[in-house]
């Protein structure tokens, strides 16, 4: 009896019986995709990460419609699944032409399959990496930004923050349509979940979130020192950074390791002109005044002065922006397919480095934004662009060598990644006195961390040697054992670094507060930043 009820329930759920609803709003007419893996045929792999694989597939009963399936290994995620549940819910309740939502999601043994529309041209970040290393032409940027603002305006209106806006999360289809993807760190300001750090009292848009989330280069200053809380305007900052990324092929400060970029953002006001100077002086007048104005307004260090998405849409920069056809003509023609780009990226990476890199990359991402179930942006091949790559060891080394030690950095961290040539000019000249003080102290901090991590490594190597000498039996080959140990050690190291970084940030913030207090009795920390 109970069983038969469950079966009929299943039937309803799996789409044999499509619910007829009294209204005919387009949103409730979403076709029901089947909820069993046998209805899908996997065609190709288009993305791989440590705990997830993205496939291109067809859905046989739906007229062989092409879909993207993200298969996530649930055994690697935390037990209460709260993040995954929240994201699955957001994905199925959002309905907007510029937002990538899911057709459905269901579990297949230990994996969660999220079935999404297939965006055949992939992410803008991968397009830039493969075909536009110096950035996209301005008319194309205008279209992309306009579409993203539509998505943001919708999200913000619903009280959702995206919290991870960047070219890697902007997908494009063969007809030039643009969608914002990846809601892994997005959150709702209406969900007063204390775990998320949202205050319980019902507040307006000034509601403050306190959790650090996102990817460093795109993060707004107030998100970085999140003690103060941040709001919808944090997305506007990331949007501004994304505009620069589209224009130049990479986000500003990406020649610096992530921790450094965060520190810089806190210690001094970030200016558009800075970026142009160190980046490429040829490009200086490449962009229109309107574009520069738009970006500058998004990158105001004071969140309340940044315009909202709705208002940005009315900016003159978008006045004459074209339709998606232009994107098809300018960007998509002759572009290698997502599958080809993915395979090429795979080949380009040194086989010996590959897994370690991915591990490291994914690990750091996980730390920052936890598990995410949408979006295809992981494992893109633009390592230079990849904000999560070299990690804190670079900042430590760089600070030790006071500026010009990019070689030792690249040697240490990654052989295959092209290190930015502009590095030399970047951090050495710019700062004032305040920054030097900061540097000296962070050098001490950095060295301490280095010492700690060396101790850690020594211990690990010690136990490795012990193991090699002692253990002679066992099914695993030595290489395998070593490999595993190395992995573990790397992971531990990474954690240690992260902790160190967090402490550094904390210190930095406290110092700022003190200096703000001295400089200006009633001004806040932000005034001090501007000085």
């Amino acid at each position, binding site marked *: 009896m109970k069983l038969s*009820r469950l079966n009929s329930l299943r039937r309803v759920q799996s789409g044999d019986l499509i619910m007829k*609803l009294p209204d005919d*709003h387009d*949103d*409730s007419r979403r076709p029901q995709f089947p909820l069993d893996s046998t209805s899908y045929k996997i065609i190709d792999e288009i993305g791989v990460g440590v705990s997830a694989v993205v496939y291109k597939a067809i859905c046989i009963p739906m007229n062989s419609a092409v879909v993207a399936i993200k298969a996530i290994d*649930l055994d690697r995620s935390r037990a209460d699944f*709260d993040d995954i549940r929240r994201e699955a819910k957001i994905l199925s309740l959002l309905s907007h032409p510029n937002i990538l939502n899911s057709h459905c*999601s269901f*579990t297949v043994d230990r994996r969660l399959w999220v079935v999404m529309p297939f965006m055949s041209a992939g992410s803008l970040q991968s397009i830039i990496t493969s075909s536009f290393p110096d950035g996209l032409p301005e008319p194309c940027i205008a279209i992309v930004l306009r579409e993203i603002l539509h998505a943001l305006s919708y999200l913000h209106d619903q009280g959702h923050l995206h919290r991870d806006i960047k070219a890697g999360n902007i997908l494009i289809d063969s007809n030039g349509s643009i969608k914002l993807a990846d809601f892994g760190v997005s959150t709702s300001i209406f969900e007063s979940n204390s775990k998320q750090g949202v205050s319980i009292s019902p507040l307006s848009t000034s509601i403050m979130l306190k959790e650090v989330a996102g990817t460093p280069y795109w993060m707004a200053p107030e998100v970085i020192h999140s003690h103060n809380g941040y709001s919808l305007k944090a997305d506007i900052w990331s949007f501004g950074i994304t505009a620069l990324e589209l224009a130049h092929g990479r986000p500003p400060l990406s020649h610096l390791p992530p921790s450094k970029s965060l520190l810089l953002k806190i210690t001094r006001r970030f200016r558009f002109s800075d970026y142009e100077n160190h980046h490429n002086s040829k490009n200086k007048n490449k962009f229109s005044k309107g574009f520069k104005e738009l970006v500058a307004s998004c990158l105001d260090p004071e969140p309340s002065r940044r315009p909202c998405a709705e208002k940005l849409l009315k900016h003159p920069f978008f006045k004459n922006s074209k339709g998606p056809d232009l994107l098809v003509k300018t960007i998509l023609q002759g572009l290698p397919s997502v599958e080809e780009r993915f395979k090429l990226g795979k080949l380009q990476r040194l086989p010996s480095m590959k897994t370690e890199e991915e591990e490291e990359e994914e690990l750091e991402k996980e730390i920052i934004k936890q598990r995410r179930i949408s979006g295809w942006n992981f494992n893109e091949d633009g390592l230079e662009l990849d904000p999560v790559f070299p990690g804190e060891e670079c900042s430590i080394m760089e600070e030790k060598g006071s500026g010009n030690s990019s070689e030792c950095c690249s040697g240490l961290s990654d052989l295959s990644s092209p290190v930015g040539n502009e590095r030399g000019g970047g951090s050495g000249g710019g700062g004032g006195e305040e920054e030097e003080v900061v540097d000296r102290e962070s050098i001490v901090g950095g060295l301490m961390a280095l010492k700690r991590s060396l101790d850690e490594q020594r211990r690990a190597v010690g136990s490795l040697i012990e193991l090699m000498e002692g253990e002679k039996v066992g099914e695993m080959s030595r290489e395998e054992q070593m490999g595993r140990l190395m992995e573990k050690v790397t992971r531990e190291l990474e954690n240690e670094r992260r902790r160190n970084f967090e402490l550094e940030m904390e210190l930095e913030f406290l110092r700022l507060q003190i200096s703000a207090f001295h400089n200006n009795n009633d001004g806040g920390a932000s005034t001090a930043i501007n000085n």
Partner: protein
Amino acid sequence: MKSLFKPKPRTPVDVVRQTRDLLIYTDRNPDTKETKREEKQMLELSKNVRELKSILYGNSESEPVAEACAQLTQEFFRDNTLRLLIKCLPKLNLETRKDATQVVANLQRQQVQSRLIASDYLEANIDLMDTLVAGYENTEMALHYGAMLRECIRHQSVAKYVLESQHMKKFFDYIQLPNFDIAADAAATFKELLTRHKSTVAEFLSKNYDWFFAEYNSKLLESTNYITRRQAVKLLGDILLDRSNSAVMTRYVSSRENLRILMNLLRESSKSIQLEAFHVFKLFVANQNKPADIVGILVTNRSKLLRLFADFKTDKEDEQFEADKAHVVREIAALEPKGP
């Protein structure tokens, strides 16, 4: 009906009344959208619900005003607006459904003269919970009704009703629905019901021990679905380790059948399930008054268990876990079979 199109500004009470009028209209008309007029009514309803939301949460221009929220709440619950809203929800469009859900969520926490009047209203209209729970059987409505339900069971009396109703049995099916988003939502509600109000939960579990744990074991812990097993063993740990449930815990860990199930979970290839199972298994071992048959099983499997724990590690270092493990190992090693 003329009053519907009064010019602004309207008071919060006006907005509630107008919403109610429009809901009554919507409720009476089986076929919406047939005429221009109805379409307009629906649009007007959406606007009103949106306005309720912006009074309660504030908007980009203004913070919510406590006085306005109180007036709104009082008017909302003075009459049957919540019932109408829940009933008409399937007729609303997606955006309005979401707004309505947020409005309902917010209202549960609004105090009028330091009383949660939502709680009083729900006690008098407790059958609304039946509609909300049944929402899990409707793909379109599940996430909206589910979210409302979770907000309503913040009130202890409401949670008690749902726990003691026949609905409780249905959750064992709902959390295994094939749609992941819906199943996960049901699981979240299930967990909330069994962990939020300690005394109510303890009372429910002792009164309903037999059927509840029989279902829990067979449908959840022994489910073929990985995610069900994993969530169930985690939740079981949370329940049994809660001090207020100590009587239930003592009973649970004295059962040989329960031990068998947990030992099977310890043998799973999934590391996460193994770990969660350990946190329950340790209670069987730590029990100072182990029944003879429990001791017997532990003694019989002693060498296997000790071997298992020898390579049993967490990914990150966890002192508490290591201490628990050492304790369990010591305890098992020292066991002597009891007489029959």
